[in-house]
C-alpha cells in the first residue's frame, strides 16, 4: 500500500517535473494569484477565460495549469483580504476579519506569511491524502450503476445549495435553470431537437465556454459598472517585517492542523470546498479559544485556521472529481468540462486509464503550493500595486480576453452573442439575489443526471423504487434527505444567514 503510493507519486513527480509542466504550473499559479488579488474576477471566470488557451497544450499540461489557477486564486484572495480588507474570493471573506486588523497593527507581513505557511501545510497534507485515498474510492465507485450515480449527483446538486448565498428557493431555481439549459439541443437518445428555437447552432447544445464566460466574466463587469461607485480601495496597513514571531508561530500550529482537517473533510463533501471550509474553521477556532474577544481584533488563529482550511478544502474537492467524476463545486464542474473537451472522461476509471495524468496532477498540486509559498511573499509588493489598478482599465481587458477566448474556441461569432446573452442573464440574476454558481454546476452535470436517470428507468422498467432498493443509492438518498432537512431547519438557516451576512459586508 505504502509502496504503491510512493510508486504512484514517483510516476507523478516524474511527469510533473518536466520543464514544460513546471512552466504550466508556474503560469497557472501566477495567473491564479493575479485573479485572486483582483476584486471581481474569480477563479471561475479565470478558468473559463483561459480554457480556450489550453486547447493547444497537451491534456496534462492544460489540467496542471487550470488547477494552478484554482489554488493560486486562494492565495491571491488572502493577500487582498489581509492588506486591503477586500476579499478577492468568497473563500477569503473570513480572512478579512482578523487578517486586516493585523495589517493595521503593522503585522500584515506576519499574517501573510502565516497564511502562506498554513496553506502550504494544508496543501501538502491533502495532497498525501489524495494519493492514499484515491485508489480505494475509485475502486468502490467502479461498482456503481446508473441508480447510484443518479443519487450521487442529486446529493451533489442539493449540496451546492448549501453553498449558494441567500435563499434556498433561489438556489433550487438556479439548479433547475441550469438543468433546463443543459437539455437544449439534440436528445441523445432519439435525436429530436429540444428548445433549439429553430437555430441550427443550438442543436449541439449551449456551449459551456460562452455560458460560463457570460455568467461569470461579462455579468461581473456589468454588475460592477452598474453600481454607483466603483469600489475604492486602500486602507493598506503596510508591513515592515514579513516573519511571524515565535509566539505567533506557536499559536498558529494547532489552528493550522485543525483547519486542514476541517477543510479536507468539508472539501470532499458535495457542495463543499474552500468557502464553506473557511467559514466553519473560523467558527471552530473562535469557539475553542479561551479569549474569543480577541477574534476580530487581529487574532493570528483567526487567520491561520481558515487559511489552512480554504486551501485544504480547495484541494480536497479534487477527490470526488477525480475519483468519481462528480464535481464538488462549480470550479470542479468546469474542470470536468475542460477535461472532456480534451477528450478525457472523468470517473472512477481515470486512475487506471490515465495514471500519468492523475498522478502528475497530484504531484503538481504540491509543487504548485511550494511555488506559491516562495513566489508570493517576495511578490507581495507587486500584487498590492495591482490592487490600485483602476477598474476602467481593468474591465476592457476582461471583456477583450472573454471575447477572444469565446470566439477563438470555436471560431464562431454566434458564441460571442451567446456569451453576451448569458452576461445579461447573469447580471439580472445577480441583481435579483440569484447565484450563477449552482446554475453552472447543474448545467455541467445535467447530461450525466439525465443519462443516469433514463438508464435507471430502462433498467427497472419505469419503477422508481430502484433508487431505494439498492443500498448505496439508498444511503446517498438518505444523505440528500438529511441535507434538505438541515436546509429548512431554523437553526441552520440562521447560521447560514449569519455566514452570508458576513459575506455581504465585505
Amino acid at each position, binding site marked *: 500500500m505504502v509502496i504503491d503510493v510512493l510508486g504512484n507519486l514517483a510516476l507523478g513527480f516524474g511527469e510533473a517535473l518536466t520543464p514544460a509542466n513546471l512552466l504550466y504550473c508556474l503560469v497557472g499559479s501566477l495567473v491564479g494569484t493575479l485573479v485572486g488579488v483582483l476584486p471581481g474576477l474569480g477563479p471561475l471566470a479565470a478558468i473559463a477565460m483561459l480554457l480556450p488557451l489550453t486547447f493547444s497544450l497537451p491534456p496534462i499540461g492544460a489540467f496542471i495549469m487550470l488547477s494552478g489557477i484554482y489554488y493560486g486564486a486562494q492565495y491571491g484572495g488572502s493577500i487582498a483580504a489581509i492588506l486591503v480588507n477586500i476579499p478577492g474570493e468568497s473563500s477569503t471573506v473570513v480572512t478579512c476579519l482578523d487578517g486586516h486588523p493585523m495589517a493595521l497593527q503593522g503585522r500584515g507581513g506576519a499574517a501573510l506569511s502565516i497564511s502562506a505557511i498554513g496553506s502550504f501545510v494544508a496543501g501538502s497534507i491533502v495532497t498525501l491524502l489524495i494519493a492514499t485515498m484515491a485508489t480505494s474510492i475509485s475502486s468502490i465507485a467502479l461498482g456503481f450503476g446508473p441508480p447510484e450515480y443518479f443519487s450521487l449527483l442529486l446529493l451533489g446538486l442539493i449540496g451546492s445549495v448549501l453553498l449558494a448565498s441567500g435563499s434556498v428557493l433561489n438556489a433550487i431555481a438556479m439548479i433547475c435553470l441550469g438543468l433546463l439549459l443543459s437539455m437544449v439541443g439534440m436528445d441523445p437518445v432519439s435525436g429530436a431537437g429540444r428548445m433549439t428555437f429553430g437555430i441550427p447552432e443550438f442543436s449541439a447544445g449551449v456551449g459551456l465556454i460562452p455560458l460560463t464566460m457570460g455568467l461569470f466574466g461579462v455579468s461581473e463587469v456589468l454588475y460592477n*459598472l452598474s453600481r454607483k461607485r466603483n469600489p475604492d480601495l486602500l486602507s493598506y496597513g503596510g508591513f515592515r517585517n514579513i516573519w511571524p514571531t515565535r509566539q505567533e508561530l506557536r499559536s498558529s500550529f494547532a489552528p493550522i492542523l485543525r483547519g486542514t482537517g476541517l477543510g479536507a473533510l468539508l472539501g470532499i463533501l458535495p457542495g463543499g470546498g474552500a468557502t464553506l471550509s473557511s467559514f466553519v474553521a473560523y467558527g471552530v477556532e473562535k469557539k475553542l479559544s479561551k479569549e474569543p474577544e480577541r477574534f476580530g481584533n487581529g487574532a493570528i488563529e483567526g487567520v491561520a485556521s481558515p487559511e489552512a482550511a480554504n486551501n485544504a478544502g480547495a484541494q480536497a474537492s479534487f477527490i470526488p472529481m477525480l475519483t468519481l467524476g462528480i464535481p464538488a463545486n462549480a470550479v470542479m464542474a468546469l474542470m470536468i468540462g475542460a477535461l472532456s473537451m480534451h477528450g478525457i472522461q472523468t470517473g472512477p476509471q481515470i486512475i487506471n486509464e490515465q495514471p500519468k495524468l492523475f498522478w502528475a496532477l497530484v504531484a503538481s498540486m504540491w509543487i504548485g503550493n511550494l511555488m506559491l509559498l516562495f513566489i508570493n511573499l517576495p511578490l507581495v509588493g507587486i500584487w498590492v500595486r495591482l490592487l490600485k489598478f483602476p477598474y476602467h482599465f481593468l474591465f476592457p481587458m476582461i471583456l477583450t480576453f472573454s471575447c477572444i477566448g469565446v470566439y*477563438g474556441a470555436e471560431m464562431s461569432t454566434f458564441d460571442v452573442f451567446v456569451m453576451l446573452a448569458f452576461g445579461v442573464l447573469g447580471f439580472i440574476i445577480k441583481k435579483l439575489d440569484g447565484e450563477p454558481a449552482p446554475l453552472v454546476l447543474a448545467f455541467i452535470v445535467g447530461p450525466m443526471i439525465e443519462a443516469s436517470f433514463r438508464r435507471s428507468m430502462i433498467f427497472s422498467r419505469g419503477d422508481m423504487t430502484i433508487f431505494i432498493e439498492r443500498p448505496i443509492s439508498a444511503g446517498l438518498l438518505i444523505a440528500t434527505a438529511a441535507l434538505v432537512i438541515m436546509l429548512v431547519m431554523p437553526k441552520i438557516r440562521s447560521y447560514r444567514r449569519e455566514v452570508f451576512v458576513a459575506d455581504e459586508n465585505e
Partner: protein
Amino acid sequence: MTRTPSPGTSVRFRSPRDAALGLVLVVIASLAMIAMRHLRFGSLQQMEAGFLPITTAFLLLVIGVMKIVQGYLVDGEPIEGERIIPLLSTLAGISVFALMIERLGLPISVIALVVVCSIGIEGANIRQALLLAVLLAAGCVGLFIYALRLPFGIFPW
C-alpha cells in the same frame, strides 16, 4: 417592476427582487415549454425526448410562481439599478467585436471593443481609452496570433 398596474388601484410587491426573479423564471420556463410543445413526452417506462426537459421546465415555472407570491407577501429589498449607460456601452462593445472580428481582423476589432465599451465610464477618457486599446490590440496579436497560433486574421485584407 415595483408595481403592476391593475384597474383602479396598483398592486404593491413587498419584495420587488423576489417578484422580479419569479417573473424572469416564469418567462424562461414558458418560452422553453412553448419551444417543446411538439416534443413527445412518453412515460417512466418509455421516456421520450421531452420527458425530463418538460418536467424541469414545469418545475421552474412552479418555482417562478412561488417567487412571485413570495414577492407579494414577504418584505424584501428594492431592485438597485443606478446606471444604464455603462451597461449599454459594454453590450455595444461586445456586439461590435462579434460583428467585426471575421471581416476586419483581430487588432481593429479589439480597438473597437475597448473604445466602445469605455464610452460613458466614470474615470475613463478617450485618449486613455485609445492608448489602452492600441496596447491591448498589440498584446493580443502577440499572444494569440504569434505565441498561441490561433487562426485569427490580423488585417482586413
